[in-house]
Every structure is written in structure tokens, then in C-alpha cells.
């Protein structure tokens, strides 16, 4: 009798998984989690990747609209969006800050040298503490922050050309008007 009960375990495990998938399907993984939108961007002060003696903090960008892009050299998806960011940075539309997430400085530096550096600054979040404050669940993620330091939009996953031209740029222009 005992043994028969054991045979039900795979079924139960599967149904638990199924439940998660059901909930997961309803949520677009790229969709913004509502918690941080409209809240002030969490403060941070971190050394800059290319000039470790210099500290970068969220406060530095107060008064302007800026993008905080979470990236890492180990992140394959970041590579997919990087070219888009490099091109976008050339337009000088907005300041892009690259939060270098759980990365090794040497890897990160060579990565930027090889693929181009679109970032005005790259604060190093080596242990991922700032990532936790921002609710980062994986790279790449991008936060759009307004002049008052409030998070207005969050993009999860790579920024495609479409996401940039259809969503991000209009939002940036709108925030600049305010």
C-alpha cells in the first residue's frame, strides 16, 4: 500500500509544475513588474568600471532623463542588444548608465572594448546588491528614470530595434518634455 502511494509522486510534481506554468503564461516575462514603477530609483554608490577610483551614484543623474541598463559579459542576451545600444548612444538622445551586474572587471572591460561602449558610466555591482534593490532577476534589464529620479518604465530582456523606436524613444521624449 505504501508503495502505491509513492507512484503518485511524479504525477503530483507534474501538476505543481503545470500550475506554475499556468500562472507563468499569464505573465509576460518582459512585462514590467508593477512594484518599482512610479517609485524613486533605489540609491547606489559604486565604483566605475573604467575608473575604479571614481564613484558613480544614482544622484549624479538627477535632473535628467536616463537609462539604467543592467548588463554582464556572461550574459548572451546582452550581446544581442548591445549593438542596438551602441547605435542609440551615438544619437545622444539620453544618458545611458550600464550597471555591470555580477561580473569580473577584466571580462567586462574587454567586452566593452570589443563591442563598443555606449555607457556614460558603468558602476560595478560585483556582488549584485544593487541588483537586488532594483529587483533585477536576470540581465539584461533596462530602467527608464525621469528627471526626479523616479522609475517610469522597465524593459526586461534585450532591447530590440522595435522596442527602442516604438516604446523607449517615445517615452524618453515625453519625459524630457515634462
Amino acid at each position: 500500500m505504501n508503495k502505491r502511494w509513492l507512484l503518485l509522486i511524479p504525477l503530483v510534481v507534474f501538476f505543481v509544475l503545470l500550475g506554475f506554468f499556468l500562472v507563468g503564461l499569464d505573465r509576460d516575462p518582459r512585462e514590467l513588474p508593477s512594484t518599482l514603477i512610479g517609485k524613486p530609483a533605489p540609491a547606489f554608490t559604486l565604483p566605475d568600471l573604467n575608473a575604479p577610483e571614481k564613484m558613480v551614484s544614482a544622484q549624479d543623474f538627477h535632473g535628467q532623463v536616463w537609462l539604467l541598463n543592467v548588463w554582464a559579459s556572461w550574459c548572451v542576451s546582452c550581446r544581442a542588444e548591445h549593438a542596438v545600444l551602441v547605435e542609440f548612444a551615438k544619437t545622444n538622445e539620453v544618458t545611458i548608465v550600464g550597471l555591470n551586474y555580477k561580473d569580473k572587471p577584466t571580462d567586462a572591460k574587454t567586452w566593452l572594448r570589443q563591442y563598443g561602449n555606449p555607457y556614460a558610466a558603468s558602476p560595478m555591482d560585483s556582488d549584485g546588491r544593487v541588483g537586488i534593490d532594483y529587483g533585477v532577476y536576470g540581465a539584461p534589464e533596462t530602467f527608464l528614470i525621469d528627471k526626479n529620479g523616479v522609475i517610469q518604465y522597465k524593459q526586461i530582456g534585450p532591447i530590440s530595434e522595435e522596442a527602442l523606436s516604438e516604446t523607449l524613444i517615445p517615452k524618453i521624449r515625453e519625459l524630457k518634455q515634462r
Partner: protein
Amino acid sequence: MIPEIGQFALILATLLMIVQGTLPLVGASKGISAWMALSRRTAQGAFFFMALAMGCLIYSFIVNDFSVLNVATNSNTKLPLAYRIAASWGSHEGSIMIWVFMLGLWSCAVSIFSKHLPEEMVARVLGVMGLVGTGLLLFLLLTSNPFDRIFPVPIEGRDLNPLLQDPGMVLHPPMLYMGYVGFSVAFAFAVAALLGGRLDATWARWSRPWTTLAWCFLTLGILIGSWWAYYELGWGGWWFWDPVENASLMPWLVGTALMHSLAVTEKRGTFKVWTVLLAICTFSLSLLGTFIVRSGVLTSVHAFATDPRRGMFILALLALVIGGSLVLFAFRAPRVGASGKFKLVSRESALLANNLLLTVACGTVLLGTLYPLFLDALKLGKISVGPPYFEAVFVPLMVPTIFLMGVGAVARWKEATLPDLWTRLRWALVVTVIVSVAIPFILGRTAPTSVALLALGFGMALWVATSAVVGFLDRIKHVGGSFSEKLARQPRSFWGMFVAHLGIAVFIVGVTVVKGFEAERDVKMTPGDTVSVGGYSFRFVGIEDHPGPNYQASRGTFELSKDDKVMRNLYPEKRKYFSFGMPMTEAAIDSGVFGDRYVSLGEPLNDGKQSWSVRVYHKPFVTWIWGGCILMTLGGLLALSDRRYRVNARREAGAVSWTSVKLEKA
């Protein structure tokens, strides 16, 4: 016109699959042999129409019929022929199409190579495959029709994603899907056995070759995928623990366990319940992989368009196929009957322990892959799971697995004693320990962590290799004749195991050496500059424009030399595809048995001197990673060609009609 024929053929295939999935199953349970006999014909008919549909799709791509939405979004007049053909399975619609086409192929193969099986078994196996096929064909027709038309017809197509325009990507999906879908045969056999209440050594013998063949395809598919990531993503990694890669690794791990478990069931009549469960899990994970990739529940480099309708459909399909088979398992498995007995120290135990380890390893990969989803669903916030998690969890599980792999290959069935194992394995152990500790020092490493990691890697590889050799010597000891006669008398299935296990050793050497000794330089180079890495020099000769069929490339020339002797020129490219904005890096690789020399171009530096940022690598023994996978595949194929299967097939064909006896009893 041609797309309509394809569409029509798909509908006919669906109808035939519905018949294949219902009547033979009912016939088998009620003993109506005319209904059972339908299974073979319908399977072959369904395959014919699926092949016709696939042909129509490929034709539409070859002639660039842009009135078909799928062609218009994935092809282009400038796309070369080979990639137009590959584009047929490059899109979402196309990949589901090739999935069902493969299912048709496998079930057609079962209908042909099952002459010696009882009619009832064939009816059930093909019936189960028919049900699965029906589900996927409906998914294809209702949510992802590859033949949908658009109007007005565009003049030019959008082109295939440049990342997929590569020889590796032409082969990768068909191989991978052959593997994924091939496990449906083992699954169908398991479900058929549960339905019929007959689970014994014969059942295991029938499922074994199919499972091994599917496993070979999956191994090759993963290998090609990894190789593609290595040279196409342009930064020299070969495994990224990306959700989509994990989706293919999970069925591989459980499939490997299944292959070994089937061997025990066939030879010793034990582990039956466990083997059935593994067969169900392997195919379930293949389906789950399809779900993960196709539904967009997880983000990854491979992420395709998210369509909740599609996700919901696959989820319902998963619930029916996996849920249904697990319910059947829970209620029918107790009837399977008693197992053979074995002692704690025996080959059975080693294999069982390894099966559990492989399953746990698969579980950790599953957990890591789905963790973000779990936490998000539970509203516990979001968390990142990257390569650090997988390396920290997966590697420690592989160490005991590899150790037991050596023991299992040598231990006796039923009962082995520790002193006996020790006598036979002590030389292997001594050689392993001494050599693996010596190697890091010989290679000039002294830092403790580096020495420990290298010794561990080499130790695992040596242990597998030496214990395989011990097992081999044990075997030939008891056979008469000269050495060559002794070799000739070993069955192919033994050689299969031997070669596949050596493949694991070769693979581990590759991983260990690459991790420990790879060297890379990232430099700014102006024509004339030289950079050296790993004892090789790369001289940057210059860069020139190089037009391709549907892209414009900047092609660099690098002169590779060692000890001032010029070896060859390498031509890495930076390509701009006309239809996509994203520049693509084509690395140039000088590949050899002892490693690769790898150059990839970064960005032009626009300093007027034609300077570029350049990345060069020396990847010693990286080729062994793929060589190991090829050996594993070869081992699988050798085992498949074993004489036993052919002889048994003949013997069973002449045996009494077991079905009738069984039916009378029922």
C-alpha cells in the same frame, strides 16, 4: 497552388493520425484485430502526407513564394539556396512542422521494423504515437499554420535571422528534433506496456534500439548547437546554460539514464517501474523543452515571438500527454510484478545510483531554468540564475556519477564484493590518482585551486578510461584464442559501451584543459601589428571589403604563425546583413586535434589607420569536447548494430503467436 496542396496534405495527415491514435488502441483492448491492423497503414499514410506537406513548404521557400507569410518573414531573394531550405525549419511554424514530420518518420519506421512484434503491441505503440501526433498537428494547423497566405503579396521578404544563416544551423534543428521526437518511441512502448500490463525483458529489448538511436541524434544535435554557439556568437564559449540549451540537456540526462536502465531491465529483469518512469520522463522533458522554447515563458537569446494562445495550447497538450501517462503509471505500475533481486554491491546498484544522480542533475537544471518563473509566480520577487549556479550545483553531482560509472562498468551483476572490486580496480585507481596529481605540476601549475581543479578533471577522465580498460581486459581474459580473435569475439554492444565511455573521458579532458589553459587577448590592432597568445602569433595584415550574397562584410586577414613559421591565413569577418541592422561576427578558426586558434573582429576604431579591436584566443583541446560527443554517438551506433537485435528479431518472428495465448487469457 503548391501551398494549398501542402495545407491539404497536412489536414489529411491529421485525419489519418486521428484514426491511428484511436481505432488501433480500442482494437487492442477489445481484441478486434482488423482495427489493430489499421495502425501500420495509417502510420505510413500519415507520414506520406506529412512528407508531402514538408516538401511543399520547402518548395515554397526555394521559389521564394512571398505570398506565404512564413516565407515572406523568413526568406529573401538574396538568401542563398541552402539557407532558403534551412529557413523552412528556421521559423516557429517551420520548427513545429519539422517536429511533427519527424514524429511521422519515427512512427513510419516503427511500422516497418516491427514485423516480429505482437500485433497488439504494435497497435498500442503506434496508437500512442498517433495521439501525440494528433495533438501537435492540431497545434500546427490551429495556431501556427506554416502555409498562411498574406495579401497584398510583398515584393521582398524579410530574410532569415542572420544568426541562423550558418551551416551549423542548417543541421542543428533536424538532429535535435530527431532526438527529441525519437524518445516518443520509448515513451509509446512504455505506455503500451502499461496499457497491456506486459512489462518484461522483451519489452525492454524492443525499446532499447529506438532509445539508443534517439539518444545518438540528440547527442549530435546538442553537439552541433554547442559548436555553433562557439564560433557564431564570436566569443569562444561553448555552453552558456541558456534556458534553451538546458531544455535540450534535460532530456539528454534522463535519456542517458533511461538507456542504462533499459539495459538492466533487459538483462536482469529489474528496475521495471523505474525504467517506465524514465521513459515517460524523457519524452515529457522533450515536450517541456518544446514548450519552454515555443511559449516564451522564459526569456533567452533564442526567445521567439510570444503568443499566449500558442503557449496555452502547448500547455494543454503537456497536461494531456504527461498528466495522462503519469496517471496511467500511478495506477498500472503496481501490476508490473516483482523484480529480480540484487545485493547492495553489484552492477545493478551502481547503475541505479547513477540513474538517480543523472535524474537529480536533471532536476537541478530544471530548477535553475525555471527558478525565475517560480519566484515570479509566487510573487517572491525576481532573482537571477546564471552560469555560477549551474556550475556550483551540476559539477559536484557529476563527480560521483563519473566515479560510479567506472565501478558500474566493472562490477558483476547481482552480487559483487568490495574486496573483489578493489582487486580489479586498484590499478585503475592508483594510475588515476598518481597521474592526475602529477599532470598539473608537469604542466607548470602551482596555485592550489588551479591544481585541484585540473587534478579533479584529469582524475575523472583517467578514471573513466582506466576502468573501461580494466573492464575490457576482464572480458577478454575468459575468451579463448589469439588476441585478435579475442577482440573479434566481443559483441558490438560491448564495443559500443567502451567507445561511448571513452567519449566521456575525452569530453572531460577537453573541458578541463580549455577551462585551465585557454588564453585570450583583446587588443587594438593596426595593420602590421602582431599579437601572440598561447605560443602562436597573429599578424594583422589588413582589412578589406568583401561582398556576400545578402550582406556586406569587412574581412580581416591575419597571418598565423608559430616559432616564426607561417602556418596559414585566417579571415574573420564582420558582416552587415542588408535586411537586419545588427552586425554579425564571423570568427575565423584554425582547428586542430590539440586545440583551436580563434580570431574575431570587434569594432573599427575609426582612427584613420584602419585600426580594429580584435579578440584572439588559444583554446587548447577544445576540439576534444566535440570529439568526445562524436565518440559517444559512435558508441551508441555500434551498440545499435549489435548482432543480438537481428538474431532475436528473426527468432521472435518464428515464435508461437503469443498474442493469441494472451488474448485467450484475457
